[in-house]
């Protein structure tokens, strides 16, 4: 009927302006990250460097102290993801499987916490953490990240949980499995993909978060990666852009890769959550 090659060309042509604008910053990242310093500052600048300076990456890692920041980001994100799942999974199970007085209220409560972004409450959160003596401590970030991801996580998980047929658990019950066994051996294995996708979303949120990290952390040694890269451009007269771009590349590529690989699952996962 239609020529598939012609159609594909048309589709790509229609998408091309957006594709170019989306890829533009990535091209800038790569181009600047491997340029010698003098060429970075040259006017007019060019896309291609005369020599490729891999040394920028080593300089960035040392001078911009990216290593410790990567470590901080990893541990905060993993801790927050695990803690958030520990709190969210039981709540999601209850909302998906049980009927109880106040279920609707609980859902509305989730909706309200979902709409709040940290920035609106940042002053209050800072005061709370100060009161608990947790300013400039990474666990403060973990707690805050858990709280701000709970509503989303419960919402996502319960949408999935509802799609898991009850009959399987009921069959296990007839076979004499205890409620704990049913949960641990039947339900949770079936729910693993959902839990995994939710975990990826929480992890990416924590990895990318900026406002709370900027507000709650004081000592540069504790900076998360996002904050550390920002501190390289915020309030400095001399910005080593080739190092900064090398750092943004290092901060972006792993997450972008995870995203690209899992894209299909993330999309279908989010849709299950969204339709509900």
């Amino acid at each position, binding site marked *: 009927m239609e020529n598939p090659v012609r159609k594909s060309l048309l589709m790509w042509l229609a998408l091309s302006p957006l594709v170019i604008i989306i890829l533009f910053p990535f091209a800038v990242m790569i181009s600047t990250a491997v340029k010698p310093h003098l060429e970075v500052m040259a006017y*007019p600048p060019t896309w291609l460097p005369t020599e490729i300076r891999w040394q920028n990456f080593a300089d960035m890692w040392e001078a911009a102290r990216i290593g410790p920041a990567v470590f901080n980001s990893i541990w905060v994100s993993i801790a927050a993801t695990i803690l958030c799942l*520990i709190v969210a999974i039981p709540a999601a199970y209850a909302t998906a499987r049980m009927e109880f007085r106040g279920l609707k209220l609980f859902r509305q409560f989730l909706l309200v*916490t979902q709409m*709040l972004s940290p920035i609106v409450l940042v002053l*209050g959160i800072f005061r709370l953490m100060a009161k608990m003596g947790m300013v400039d401590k990474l666990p403060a970030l973990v707690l805050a990240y858990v*709280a701000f991801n709970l509503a989303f996580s419960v919402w996502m998980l319960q949408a999935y949980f509802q799609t898991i047929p009850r009959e399987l658990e009921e069959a296990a019950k007839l076979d004499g499995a205890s409620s704990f066994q049913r949960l641990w051996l039947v339900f949770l294995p079936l729910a693993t993909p959902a839990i995994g996708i939710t975990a990826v979303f929480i992890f990416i949120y924590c990895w*990318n978060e900026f*406002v709370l990290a900027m507000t709650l952390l004081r000592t540069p040694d504790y900076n998360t990666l996002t904050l550390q890269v920002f501190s390289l451009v915020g309030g400095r007269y001399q910005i080593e852009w080739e190092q900064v771009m090398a750092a943004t590349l290092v901060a*972006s590529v792993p*997450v972008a890769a995870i995203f690209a690989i899992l894209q299909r699952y993330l999309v279908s996962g989010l849709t299950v959550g969204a339709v509900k």
Partner: protein
Amino acid sequence: MSRAATQSGTNLGRASTPYLLILPAILFSFWIIGYPIYDLAGMSLRQVNRFGLTAGFNDFNNYSRLFSHQLFIGCLIRTLVWTVCVVGGTVILSVPIALILNEKFYGRQLARVIIMLPWAVSLTMMGIVWRWSLNGQSGMVNATLYQFGLLKAPIEWLATAGTAFPILIGVGILVSVPFTVTVFLGGLSSLPSDIFEAAKIDGADGWQRFRHLTMPLLRPFLNLVLVLNFIYVFNSFPLIWVMTQGDPANSTDILVTWLYKLAFRYGELGMASALSVVMFLILLALTITYAMLAMRNERST
């Protein structure tokens, strides 16, 4: 509900199970989100010094100072412009993109990955890279425009009052498109294909099918996208903070960036808490409207 009630009559232990399961989530939210709201509300009504020590009630002085501040109206209007333009632009762009990505063509998977990319990269990183790209002297935006003969003299995009805010809006749209396209794609894939076949057989052309079938069926997804984007964009801080910090001369400040400055730069804790409360109420009103709309939809279907 009735089943739960009879169960609770016969077996108290089992009836309390759901509450035990949701209890940690509730406690956590009250602790980290609820208490700050309570604290901000209290602080907004009291006299506060720059170290956060509160004194007695001050007759809504924080609110009256906030509303009469010379920057308040400007920030409020810019927040509105910012939110409406970014959300509107995002939705208008996302519908056709989702329709294209829903077609079968060579390289569709790659196209999807590219379109989703900005979503994975943090707003902070996007802001930093765009700030560098838009640099007047060494930025690649000027260099590229220059190469194509579209520019004669370099433009300081972010340091010029006339261009900074529109540029921010453009970048804002760019980073909001991936999420929005994703939701629409999910919506499109959930549409029943048989009615489209039927419409085709009945002679409806592409535009008619889009107007009378696709759009109405996408309606719930459109609502969802509008509300969520509104909340995200209204609260969007990192992009503006990284690219301009509200400069030049507060011309790109929206409420969230101004709030941060009031709280952590100028030490105006009273006004900052009042502004937090105002923004909280705006968001709450919006969420309630959304919940009511969603409930009405549920009842009508």
